[in-house]
């Protein structure tokens, strides 16, 4: 196995884990924002 291939595999592993971690974080952010700032019928700023 060449050095470049070994490095590419390491980046691929870290990258796949990294993107799932980011998305899990965004999931929590969305859930948190939705809970903290829920839609209210009388809120004019809301859609």
């Amino acid at each position: 196995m060449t050095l470049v291939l070994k490095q590419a595999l390491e980046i691929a592993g870290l990258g796949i884990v990294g993107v799932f971690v980011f998305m899990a974080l965004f999931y929590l952010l969305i859930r948190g924002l939705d809970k903290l700032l829920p839609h209210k019928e009388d809120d004019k700023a809301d859609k």
Partner: protein
Amino acid sequence: MGFEELLPAIAGMTWQHLVMIAVGLILIYLAIVKNYEPNLLLPMGFGAILVNIPWSSAISQIDPATGEAVEGVLNVFFNAGIATEIFPLLIFVAVGAMIDFSPLFRNPSLLLFGAAAQFGIFLTMVLAAVLGYDLREAASIGIIGAADGPTSIVVASRFAPDLLGPISVAAYSYMALVPIIQPPVIRSLTTRKERLIRMTNVSNKVISKKALIAFPIVVTIAAGIIAPSSLALIGFLMFGNLIRECGVLNNLSKSAQNELSNLVTLLLGITIASTMTADRFIRVDTLVIIALGLFAFVFDTFGGVLFAKFLNLFRKEGNKINPMVGACGISAFPMSARVIHQMGQKEDPYNYLLMPAISANVGGQIGSVIVGGIILTLVPLFA
């Protein structure tokens, strides 16, 4: 005075120039007749003709009389707009202004498909490394699978500017070919029973405007703390989205979505063409890169569909995910969502997959930018 002095363009014309002019004509044909990403393919096609006429003043040349370099306008655009990453980042502002994140707030768990469907990027990077490309080139080729032109351009212009032409052509061409690439891959990975799954439990609730305003700000801060080097990509995308959602910059939001997007795309397309000169484009590398780009798109789809099937192992009957929705985790928005909705309707005219497909597709838009940021962070640590 000889023929070469009178008509230097004809005297200097080689078969490679003629091939590139034909490539330019094909891109223009695809843009006008097939309507494949015309905003970008048409300027690229015209630019390819412009730079492949010998002694074209559109690109830098050495003046044979004086031996001095004369800078061409496309090289000026390249140095000002692409080498500095200004053009792709302005496109991110425009894209941010076009994205509505409310489908993600309604079905946040579908965000994970935006991660799973980036699998092809990393697999392609590994394959490119196997084929002998160095790490920076391999990463730039892999990112074609982001199905996101500006991200591909940012990564390629930083890591492999010599490959920018073929990478951009592959990225934008395959984005336009999503309706042709994805369906056969999805059909080969799913059973008819799986394709008939209805996702009736998707939420349709109204989302708070305050939450939509807070989202781009919170994401920018969170992404900046974790990976500061990804901030240019994510920050500009979220800035565009904040302009859209804030409610007080409606004119700016519309300008970003229309005038800014159109003008920068036009400049981006014709400027990328400055890298499509015969000596840089007519190489075996170009064909390999175009083939690897297709591989990346296929395995993105593969990753998304298999991840949905994996999640279904843990979900109860009646709460399962239609695996086709997993394929929408790529960034080609809203094309991928539309393709999956149409595939669902073909199997069962009463199956409406558009809402979950859009949610996963928005997740893909975030996912592709995140992967771009991750690659920009990780590759310099290794290479």
